[in-house]
């Protein structure tokens, strides 16, 4: 059963058709590279899946059952987590605090409920160890590398037992070594049965980790195929429109 299935999803903003009739499915443990030029509809599609926008028409199925998201929290409850491009983490807090932000662990102290730092650090440490990241729970995010920040954002997603993780340009602004780190994180997610939708401009990254590649052009899905059956040249052609459909 597909972790995520879209059927005929369209999204209009007035007369602008941001998405037209997109049908797509992602299996558990599958990494799908979502590509397209600026304005092709990638981020609109991500926002529809994440519950930021309701689709104008079409349906979304999560693990086979129909889902209706009115706000991001609904999508989160259904097991969808988004790792945003700017990562949505607070530089002034520690890694552990970021992982647990908004769902802090507490313990009882007399009549008061106080934060359970020890527990949060331990759990965050376990998540980082699982992700094979060198991130230390106590360190401030401000002092971290791009790869470590990604690990923090992904640990957040893991904490909630996400079934589907949407990643928006995770490798856009980081060094080559860190890109390798992030790609390893994505492989880890996929090995653990999590479906990953990877939005990226970077062809080599997508070809390294994605099982399938989906290409959007002007709001339409023009390709959805195994990355092994395609080539960067073909995808470039699909993105620009030199190749009509594949």
């Amino acid at each position, binding site marked *: 059963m597909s972790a995520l299935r879209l059927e005929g999803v369209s999204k209009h903003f007035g007369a602008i058709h941001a998405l037209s009739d997109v049908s797509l499915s992602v299996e558990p443990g599958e990494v799908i590279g979502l590509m397209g030029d600026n304005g092709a509809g990638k981020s609109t599609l991500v926002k529809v899946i994440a519950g930021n926008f309701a689709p104008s028409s079409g349906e979304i199925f999560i693990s086979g059952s129909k889902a209706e998201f009115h706000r991001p929290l609904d999508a989160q409850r259904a097991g969808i987590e988004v790792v945003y491009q700017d990562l*949505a983490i607070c530089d002034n807090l520690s890694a552990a605090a970021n992982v647990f932000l908004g769902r802090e662990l507490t313990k009882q102290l007399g009549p008061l409920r106080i934060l359970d730092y020890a527990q949060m650090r331990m759990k965050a440490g376990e998540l980082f160890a699982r992700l094979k990241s060198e991130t230390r729970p106590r360190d401030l995010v401000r002092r971290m590398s791009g790869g470590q920040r990604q690990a923090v954002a992904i640990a957040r997603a893991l904490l909630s037992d996400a079934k589907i993780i949407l990643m928006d340009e995770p490798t856009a602004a980081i060094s080559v070594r860190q890109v390798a780190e992030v790609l390893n994180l994505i492989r880890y997610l996929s090995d653990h049965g999590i479906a990953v939708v990877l939005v990226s401009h970077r062809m080599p990254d997508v070809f390294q980790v994605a099982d399938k590649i989906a290409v959007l052009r002007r709001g339409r899905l023009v390709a959805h195929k195994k990355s092994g059956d395609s080539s960067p040249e073909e995808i470039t052609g699909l993105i620009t429109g030199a190749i009509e459909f594949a």
Partner: protein
Amino acid sequence: MSTANSLADVIDQSEHRGLRSRLISHQTFWVFMAAILACLALSVLTDTFATERNLFNVSRNFAFVGIIALGMTAVIASGGIDLSVGSTVVLSSMTVAVLMSAGMPFWIGVPAALAVAILVGVVNGVLIAYAGMPSFVVTLGMLSVARSLAMVLSNNKMIYQFGPDHALLLALGGGSTMGLPNPLIALVVLAAITGFLFRWTRWGQHLFAMGGNENAAKLTGIPVRQLKVSVYVFSALTAGITGVLEVGWLGGVTTNLGQGMELSVIAAAVIGGANLAGGIGTAFGALVGALLIEVIRNSLILLGISTFWQGAFVGSFIVIAVAFDRFRSIRQSG
């Protein structure tokens, strides 16, 4: 297991070694040293500073600025500013004064004054959080409105008769317990509470998260709007408490009470390490910042320097503290 242990040990050690260097690199530490040094210098240079009477006065003044600096630190750490605190002080004072001079008992006057302060905070917070207006503008408007309301309330007259519970009100703000002025005790208690809230509660955690990256806080599901309202209410409440205490200390209220106080308070918070860009600040820092400001202010008087210079000092302090911060962040990123 043993490798895991040793790794944890190494991390632990490096963190312990870092503690001393962290302390020394901390702004609060240096401000604290400066305040202590200033106290020592004044004790030597003047024979009036270290007298009981002067210290009693200094500690009380310090308490008033310090209490509000706690609230201001919360606001600044959340990424905002509250310019209305000085006016909230006078409105709270005037509320308790008017009610009690009309014959109301203490236990009606004081809660009413605090309720009025909370109301000011709610109005500030709602306009900032729900109408999305800049905190600078909203609280600047409130600065004018609240003081004006205090004038309307009192008909701009001085009030120094507080009805049947007159003595009680004066004892609250002007008296002392076990040799310590009551406002100072209030400051210590409130600082401990604030420090606890910042460090150990979800409220504190969310407040600093919001100040660090409001968008991230929103995306993680933190109720950013309610949180903002609560922060301005907290700030207004500290001003309200100060207002009630200050009536007792002064023994009378005029409508120029707390005028320009927001500047000292913001200076205290910023000198104490609160970052105007948001996300950083401590309760202890607010205390230390208020202490330094008050000691400097007192020293100007004792050293016979015209009080006209006070504004220049306080204003320069804010700018210098922010300049230090800029300098540090430039060095860090460079």
